[in-house]
């Protein structure tokens, strides 16, 4: 019973590393999380990446900047207009809460999103943009989501 209570409270004693992981898995319904992560993969992971990866090899920096704008500010389009990547991420956070925050992959995803969104600050400038770096950072979100999905599935 004591062990169950500890798990429910999210706390674990030293030497119970396995229990710590299991406790995290009990804070959410894996199916629900996988659904949410599936949507995030499509809405954010895929569409934040595509405008850059779909550029032709010789695209000039102006095209890169336009693609970056589409990627970050017009990430998803729908009947209610366009939705920026930052809003998609905020909506996801609101749905998930802190239920996944104890998983190691969660940190990886948070860091990837942070790095990608940081490129917003470059949208207003007129300097050439480092396409490879941007593409790497925007593409990292998709990989991080996939990593988290696998971890959720494994713990489920």
């Amino acid at each position, binding site marked *: 019973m004591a062990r169950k209570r500890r798990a429910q409270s999210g706390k674990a004693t030293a030497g119970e590393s396995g229990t710590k992981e299991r406790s995290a898995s009990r804070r959410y319904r894996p199916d629900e999380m*996988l*659904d949410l992560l*599936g*949507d995030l*993969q*499509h*809405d954010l992971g*895929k*569409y934040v*990446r*595509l*405008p850059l*990866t*779909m*550029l*032709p090899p010789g695209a000039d920096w102006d095209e890169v900047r336009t693609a970056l704008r*589409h990627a970050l500010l*017009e990430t*998803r*389009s*729908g*009947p209610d207009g*366009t939705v920026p990547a930052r809003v998609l991420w905020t909506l996801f956070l609101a749905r998930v809460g802190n239920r996944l925050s104890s998983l190691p992959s969660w940190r990886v995803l948070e860091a990837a999103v942070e790095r990608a969104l940081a490129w917003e600050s470059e949208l207003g400038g007129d300097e050439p943009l480092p396409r490879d770096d941007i593409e790497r950072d925007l593409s990292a979100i998709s990989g991080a989501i996939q990593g988290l999905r696998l971890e959720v599935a494994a713990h489920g």
Partner: protein
Amino acid sequence: MGEKRPRILVIDDGLTYARVVARHLPEYELVAAGEPAEAPRIEDGPAALDYLARHGRDVDVILLDLKFDVPQERLLPLEEGADLRRTRRFQGVAILREIRKRHPEMPVVLLTSQADLSLAELAEDLASQSMTYFLDGDDLDSLRIRINAAVQEASQPVEENGMLWGRSPGMRAVRRRLSVLAQGRMPAILEGETGTGKSYLAQRFLHAHSGRTGPFVTVDLGTVPPDLVAAHLFGATRGAYTGAVADRKGVFELADQGTLFLDEVQNIPLDVQKQLLLVLQDRRVRPLGSSREKNVDVKVVAASSMPLARAVAEGRFRRDLYMRLSPATRVVIPPLRERPEDLPFLARRLTELAGAQEETASLRDRVGQAVGIAPGTPMTLQIESDGGERGAGVMLLLPTPTWRLLAEHSWPGNVRELAMVLHNLVTFTLVEAADVLRAGLPLKSPRLQVDPGLVATLLTGYAALPDSRPDASAGAATEDPLRCEVTLVAGETLNDVSNGAERQYFLALFRRTKGDFRQMARLLLGDADRERAVRLRFNQLGLKVRELRGWMSCGPWR
């Protein structure tokens, strides 16, 4: 004026792909449907179906997204019990199903990678669809390549001027290659087992599409006595050899400005091969016994029922002549047993053709008139378990066990053998029906059931013949269904060779396991649970699981 650009319809609630096509793929035209004007697309299924109903002919390929975040009233139903979230997530599947019902030949590229579908049981449903393609990468080249492949494949006819191509990737590749080789004067090498249609393709496709004004001349070098081959090819003057009582033109001269088809070219004696090489190089022939050379402009198509490279390796064919014929122009016609998905189509068309031949058409019409069918109405073939292909004419009905006999046959004589078997089935079945009428008995139905015993007898008769296949001598190739043949040819990429071998292997594996993907995964990967990986590889190789299964469902393996 430039060539007309293939037209793309984007069905996507988002703008990304329409923007990409509009900005970066100028070789395609976005059809003017929906908003915004600079990147038009249609945002939901009902609107797309409505557009296709009115303008379907203006669309060459569809790019279709999978997930649609649109209001519920603009969603097509996915499946019974699917909640709103699932219906949105897989809305592309629902749209695709409707498109397939209404426009079965429309090529559709799904704008999602197979990895995105890894958790969806719907992946198999999508992967097995004809004319349905996954976008495998997320770069511009992947998109361009996939769209181009879809457009190219869709534009290839299943049947064309009497040529029965079928839908198998192997025959589609043959047609693409021949289309290129038909241009210009360069020679071509056709390799394939007996009965695969090498001569027919040379005349009806290569020559017909060459634009050459001269005749098509064919010579079967397997039937010309070796000591007469030179005279036959290059001509001879009177008295050049014993029996040459008059000047005679060779086939090169006869084929001037046209096409010369050298069948069984591996049979040319080595000494004549040297002369042939010179003719191909200099484009001049000197008849035997003559001191004068004549200019000739001939497109040479050389055919062989064995790989010429092997004849070279065995010292029976000159390497320099082989190189002159250019191995890069080699086309291998796949045997019928390697394209089982084409068998139902071929059987149907060959039945119709057999029923239209002079000696059978009168029988067909006599039988048809007895059941109220107008003379001249084509015969049809119905494969019982297939359920399709109902026609207005006299119908040959193949019950499932009878079709199995045909399906499990290895067809060593290939399409020619299939045509002969069907011709015999048509004739025998019509004669039996006519006998019933002659005896004063009524025929109540235009459906004439084929006698399974007759099919077995016909196939046994062919099976008793010596196998002409190049690898059949030891019997190993036919006895081991997982044996593949790989021939390395200049001009083919390693990927081409690898995919060809892999395709053969997967087909054989499909047969051996009776289409059981878990068993295939266990055999290939040591883990039955990895069946999805095998399914996806089938799709990447162009093996349409639904078609194979459809054929197999009435085949011998189930």
